[in-house]
């Protein structure tokens, strides 16, 4: 067999593509479901935490900052393993996809909180004072004056970090979530061929290359122009 044929036989074997395509597609659905769930809960929780932080209550803010720092300093895989192997021992049984969703949501929430908080801080004090002096309440000022300005600044960094964190759905493979990478490695071990891994890699590219390109467009569109 010449080199080209050998390459095709190793990475793009036609029978195997046909046999394992349904599994990979199933994995893609799982990856998309978990990624979407993580983005929604993570960003919502992050925004909520940033709003709570803006109340500046020391009793709440100290544990909040500790949570954010810890979630940012620990590798996500470490958190996944602690939750996955730890919770059953204290009587909480979660399916593996729920563990992955929970951990990644918390990590994204921590990162999003930092970014939203930096955004809120970046809105000048005069904006608060001007809004309050027109008779708006605290919440009205926050929602109608400060957040619209803050969120615009947060879009580029938030997009980047969100993409990076949703890619961590691949960590599900380690605890047996049937996402793309898990399907691909399982298929690879049955077929003893690298084709399923190549299919898995391509599946990720199909999902995430458009996201990366969209992310770059958003970054340019919302670029923070330094004065």
């Amino acid at each position: 067999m010449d080199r080209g044929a050998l390459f095709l036989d190793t990475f793009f074997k036609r029978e195997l593509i046909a046999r394992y395509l349904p599994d990979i597609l199933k994995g893609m659905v799982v990856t998309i479901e978990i990624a979407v769930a993580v983005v929604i809960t993570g960003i919502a929780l992050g925004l909520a935490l940033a709003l709570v932080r803006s109340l500046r209550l020391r009793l709440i803010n100290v544990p909040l900052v500790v949570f954010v720092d810890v979630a940012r300093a620990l590798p996500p895989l470490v958190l996944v393993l602690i939750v996955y192997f730890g919770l059953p021992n204290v009587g909480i049984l979660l399916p593996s996809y729920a563990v992955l969703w929970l951990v990644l949501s918390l990590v994204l929430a921590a990162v999003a909180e930092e970014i939203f908080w930096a955004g809120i801080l970046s809105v000048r004090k005069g904006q608060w004072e001007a809004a309050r002096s027109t008779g708006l309440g605290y919440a009205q000022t926050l929602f109608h004056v400060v957040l619209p300005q803050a969120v615009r600044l947060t879009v580029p960094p938030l997009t980047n970090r969100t993409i990076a964190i949703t890619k961590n759905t691949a960590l599900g493979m380690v605890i047996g979530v049937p996402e793309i990478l898990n399907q691909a490695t399982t298929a690879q071990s049955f077929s003893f061929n690298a084709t399923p891994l190549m299919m898995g890699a391509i599946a990720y590219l199909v999902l995430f290359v458009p996201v990366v390109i969209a992310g770059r467009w958003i970054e340019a569109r919302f670029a923070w122009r330094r004065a």
Partner: protein
Amino acid sequence: MDALLQQFFNIDIMVQAAPLIFRGLGMTLLVCAAVVPLGLAGGLMVALAGRARSRAVRVVVAVLVDIFRAAPPLVLLIFVHAGLPFAGVRLTPFASVCIAFFLNNSAYYGEIYRAGLDSVGAGQREAARSTGVTAWQAMAYVVIPQAVRNVLPDLVSNTVEVVKLTSLASVVALPEMLYSADMARSLTYNPSPIVLAAAIYLVLLWPVVRLMSRLEHRLGG
């Protein structure tokens, strides 16, 4: 509460696992010492190639950067470690980790350098050139130092991500800190060793995370 402590903060088990975990920490630091410089150098090459005069080079670099930013690092790692042997390329776990993370990190660092290079005005290069230095000298002594200074917070923050990334090496059985901790966990049926590893990651990275968030708030304000 007591059950919780027994499960997650079991001191006896932590003490037992400590030697193994600290040996793992050594490997983690070794991996960092390899992949951080590789990524920083690769990223600089990517950023410079991204401004090459040849359009073909620029397009190829842009496509590669997008591919390696889109593929999750764990996917790259598994592909290199479990896929390449079928093509006759058999690598040690350490080499697999270095190659996979070099590809991923170069793309990420590259994007940061690119922003840094863009932030240095063309006048800097022109002024340097007009004093008679070559294009490469102007780049190396005038443009790059300013570019790096402008994006230093992003470089530091990405380096924290790289250090966290090294925990993925446990999946390909490289005996770094998380791998050692997980081995201790499976022997003791108790997640405390992983909590100990987490504590060590925290000691290493928390100061940097704290510093970064102060820098970010100052930039915002």
